[in-house]
């Protein structure tokens, strides 16, 4: 019997003995506590590459849920594994930092449009499963860091996804209603009014309940529950007050922005400043609360509910959520969404605490740059005031210089005006110093320069001029600040506005042989080679005040000087003759005067043009072909 007993027991005992084998997974230490590295010496050395995670590369087909590859507003399959798999592509381009889409779990789909971009937060503390898990994210960051590529995380504090609807008519379901008779009677007009309870128009002081008998106080809010599309109430696991986002106090509840206001008016009103007389702001049309309160307090179009960031509990929750990600993943900075939709007091509270936490983690030079979608430079500059963010996304430059000077036909002097004169007024005057425990440079030295991004049409859209693109890229990588390039620029993507500007990069097979890719590669290499291009002062030398033409500036350190010259004219060659930046308004043009000594021979390290020699009095005159760029060094 004993023998039979053995026969019987041995197989199962064997399996029992084997069971622990299943515990033997190699997680490559991804489950260990994150060690925070300090890879950034100076953010001016960095070159950012913006990645829309869903559109960059699909490296993990196991998370391909609900893909609609043919529809630009739906998930396409990109993920963190895809980024990790193609870091060699990023590295080949020469960029040094990647900025990735928000990582948190989103409302999956709303009105058949997906949260593939990441800006529809549903759970502040869960990862978006379309992009991978914590191991995949950490692995990607670790792999990037191993190549000395830093990773910046996109975060959103202004709003969450489509969490609830305003039950305006009190029937408990989200309606689209039409009010009014649409006629003009003796008692007055009764215009038709369309109301959508998911996304009603902004009103003061809150979205009101209504019946046919009139207003009835604040409209109740009802949270949606549709697990299939992850339309479920917002979550924040571990937050100090986990139920906060289920209560009214967490939101402004004023409805969707329908009047974006004039930034040059509302900026002054909302900050209690006198409006300069030349802005001609109408007290009612441009400065009333119904106009200027919409941006900071209104829901973002699409039903994205605006958080009540004045509420200390909301601030505490957001602090908790984003500190948590800093601890769990070794990010090197935050790109912050919708800066101007949140009050300055919030940033003065949020940013220093984040910096202090980074310091506690041992993370130095943690960069926070924000997106204030405005071309109004004073407004942009206001967000880098002491205690606020380190830098902003330089929208005013995008409009004035890249769209105006390089893509349009604006005078090249506009670049000098913005980058030198306005910058001094709007940034250096606001905050000449680096933020305490911040990114390590004064804001005006680390503005994040860009041609285009996921919220605007691509540079090549509409007027697909590759030569203009290359000039713009040359400017991007030779001016001061931090260059930031949107993925796909290197592949000549030319999509229009969102979502057409969010193409699948994998459609290009990640080719590195294209002319634009190679051109960018040469620019990033130049920037790496020349300290002056990264850290040098920027001195404008020549400009054209009438239209397209010559634009010249120098970048210089104590040891090196680089002269960069553009001819922005599409068809005409131009001599390096024009106005000096400090010329009086009607001053005559003259030859360019540079910072190099007489007789210095300068060679073009970008295009390989023939060397030129600095003449007497440090003048330098030569002819530039249409759309030519030269980067001249001694």
């Amino acid at each position, binding site marked *: *019997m004993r023998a*039979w*007993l053995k*026969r*019987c*027991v*041995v*197989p*199962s005992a*064997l*399996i*029992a003995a*084997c*069971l622990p*084998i*299943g*515990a*033997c*997974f190699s*997680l*490559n230490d*991804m*489950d260990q*506590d*994150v060690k925070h590295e300090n890879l950034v010496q100076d953010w001016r050395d960095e070159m950012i590459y913006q990645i829309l995670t869903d559109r960059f590369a*699909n*490296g*993990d*087909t*196991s*998370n391909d849920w609900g893909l*609609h590859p*043919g529809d630009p507003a739906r998930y396409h399959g990109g993920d963190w*594994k895809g980024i990790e*798999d193609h870091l060699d592509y990023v590295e080949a381009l020469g960029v040094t930092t990647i900025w990735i889409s928000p990582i948190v779990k989103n409302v999956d789909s709303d009105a058949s449009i997906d949260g593939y971009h990441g800006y529809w937060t549903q759970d502040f*503390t*869960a*990862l978006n499963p379309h992009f*991978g*898990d*914590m*191991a*995949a994210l*950490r*692995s990607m960051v670790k792999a990037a860091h191993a190549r000395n590529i830093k990773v910046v995380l996109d975060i959103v504090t202004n709003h969450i996804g489509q969490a609830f609807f305003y039950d305006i008519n009190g029937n408990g379901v989200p309606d689209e209603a039409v009010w009014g008779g649409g006629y003009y009677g003796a008692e007055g007009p009764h215009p038709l009014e369309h109301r959508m309870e998911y996304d009603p128009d902004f009103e003061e002081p809150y979205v009101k309940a209504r019946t046919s008998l009139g207003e009835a106080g604040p409209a109740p809010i009802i949270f949606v529950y549709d*697990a299939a599309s992850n339309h479920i109430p917002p979550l924040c*696991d571990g937050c100090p007050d986990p139920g906060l986002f289920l209560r009214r106090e967490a939101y402004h509840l004023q409805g969707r922005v329908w009047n974006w206001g004039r930034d040059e008016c509302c900026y002054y009103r909302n900050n209690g400043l006198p409006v300069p007389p030349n802005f001609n702001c109408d007290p009612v049309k441009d400065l009333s609360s119904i106009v200027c309160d919409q941006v900071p307090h209104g829901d973002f179009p699409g039903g994205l509910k605006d958080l009540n960031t004045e509420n200390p509990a909301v601030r505490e929750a957001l602090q908790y959520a984003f500190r948590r990600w800093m601890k*769990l993943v070794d990010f090197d900075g935050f790109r912050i969404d919708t800066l101007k939709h949140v009050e300055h007091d919030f940033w003065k509270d949020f940013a220093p605490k984040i910096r202090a936490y980074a310091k506690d983690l041992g993370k130095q030079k943690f960069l926070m740059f924000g997106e204030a979608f405005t071309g109004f430079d004073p407004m942009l500059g206001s967000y880098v005031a002491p205690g606020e963010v380190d830098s902003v996304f330089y929208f005013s430059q995008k409009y004035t210089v890249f769209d105006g000077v390089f893509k349009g036909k604006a005078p090249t002097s506009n670049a000098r005006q913005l980058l030198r004169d306005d910058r001094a007024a709007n940034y250096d005057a606001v905050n000449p110093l680096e933020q305490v425990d911040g990114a390590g440079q004064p804001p005006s030295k680390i503005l994040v320069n860009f041609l285009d991004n996921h919220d605007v049409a691509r540079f090549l859209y509409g007027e697909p001029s590759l030569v203009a693109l290359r000039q713009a890229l040359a400017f991007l990588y030779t001016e001061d600040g931090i260059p930031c390039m949107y993925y796909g620029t290197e592949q000549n993507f030319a999509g229009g506005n969102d979502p057409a500007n969010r193409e699948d990069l994998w459609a290009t097979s990640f080719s590195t042989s294209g002319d634009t890719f190679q051109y960018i590669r040469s620019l990033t290499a130049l920037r790496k080679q020349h300290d002056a291009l990264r850290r040098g002062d920027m001195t404008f030398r020549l400009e054209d005040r009438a239209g397209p033409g010559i634009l010249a500036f120098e970048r210089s350190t104590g040891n090196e000087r680089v002269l960069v010259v553009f001819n922005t004219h599409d068809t005409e060659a131009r001599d390096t003759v024009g106005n000096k930046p400090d010329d009086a308004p009607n001053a005559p043009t003259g030859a360019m005067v540079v910072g190099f000594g007489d007789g210095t021979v300068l060679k073009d390290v970008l295009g390989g043009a023939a060397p030129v020699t600095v003449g007497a009095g440090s003048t330098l005159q030569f002819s530039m072909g249409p759309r030519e760029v030269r980067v001249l060094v001694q």
Partner: protein
Amino acid sequence: MHSSSRTALRAALAGLALTAACFARTAQAADEDTSKPAPAPAPPAEGTAPAEPPAAATPTPAPAKPATPTAAAAAAPPKEEPKEAAPKSNAPPGEEAEGFHFGSYGRVRAATDMRGGGPQYANIVAHGSRLDSEPYAELELRNTQYPEKGMRLRVISTLAFAGDPFHYTGKFETKLAIRNLFVDVRGIGLPGLTLWAGSRMYRGDDIYLLDFWPLDNLNTVGGGAILDATKSTRVQIHVGTNRLIDGSFQYQERQLPSPTGVGSVSAQTLNRPRTIVSGKITQFFPDNQARQGFKVSLHAEGHLLPSGVLESSTTTVRSPTYLPADNGFVIGAQATPYGFGDRDGFAHLFVRYARGIAAYGDLSTPFGLNGERRASGASEFLVAAASNFQVDRFAVLTGAYLRRFNDASSAVYSVNKFWEGILSVRPYVYTSEHTGIAVEGSYQYRNANVLDNWGKHRVPQVARFSLLPFVTPWGWGTFRRPILFALYTATARNESARLMYPTDDPRSTRSVEHYVGIGAEWWFNSSSYP
């Protein structure tokens, strides 16, 4: 055991079955049957394999459990069918009589979670404890003929019902499937050759405690041959197909403009059956007539899937999705000593490796495909064991497996790359001739190569203890049926196991789950299997 009471019970049950099934079984045959000594318990492993419905979905995405089980294939000597001798028949001695026969497998339970709710199931592995099985029944109708001496012809159909019965739901609805619908004929060509064709649950030995056929479990429409080449060697081959109605992988039906010019007609625009070829050779030592011996089986499968084209939208015109041809294979082996102990002793050891589409099982739509939409790269490795040992009034059943699954995706970290395992042990003691009590202890875990949102590598684990007092009308034997039983199960989950469930699922907060119930399980006169 008192033979008189056994005889009476057998008579009552047989009569009940016959009446309920309205079968043309003669009263004389039934009388004869009841007058005989009690039939021997089902041979080892054979009859230990009651069919069941597809497994309940596991909380995390996992390859679907092979979904259409049946009774186990012969592990040991050929099953002895109840003798129903028909006068003037060509039926060989010891074989069932000509005519219609009824067989059944079933299980029903009523249970509570002791918190005012119904039973909450707790398995976290693909093939967990059988105690979590939902009600299920098979009704088998079989016609057997002996056209001439040496030849047997059978038409077999098995109707299966899954889910809670009417008296629980109050609804006239049930999940219904035809699990067997085939004809087999023995004795044409070679004496030991059986040919079959039709729709068939086609499989070998199982792990009773886990309700799992670890080596071979195929569900196809096709045909095959079983050759008992010698008394010690059995060779089986089979080819069959299935084409799942999955809507996106094997099958798509669309509305197309009618050729008449008016209205629409439906057409199968994606229709790519999977073809499965299998072969199995079993060697018995000393031979298949021996009450005690040893057998070894080698099993192999080949899976082929042709290419197809999927329309990604049925309401808009889009670029179609090309689905490439795919394939896969299985190789496996089994070693089984049997016939030891006082009753039906056996010990199975299985090893199986599958690759490609075969790694997902024949009734699953592959997921986590690679960038070419193929399953190449997917794999499953399995080691499993089961045993039965009975001495006097004591018995012990065991079951266990360890499984490694990798989907075909290029992911390194994925919920679809995991190890899982379970060990279950159920000792019995018979307290009288018709009563007994069993206890069952089991442990299971699932270890996926993934971190949670906190960066933790979680390994869900479940440990269970169960108590089963039972009534066994046919006396002692772990595979004697029917049984009536009461059941108490306490299931302990670790935090990781609780986190496998959605927040509002009660199991997400219960570290200990209770399950109290009563139930019954039976099988009788089921068709023989290869």
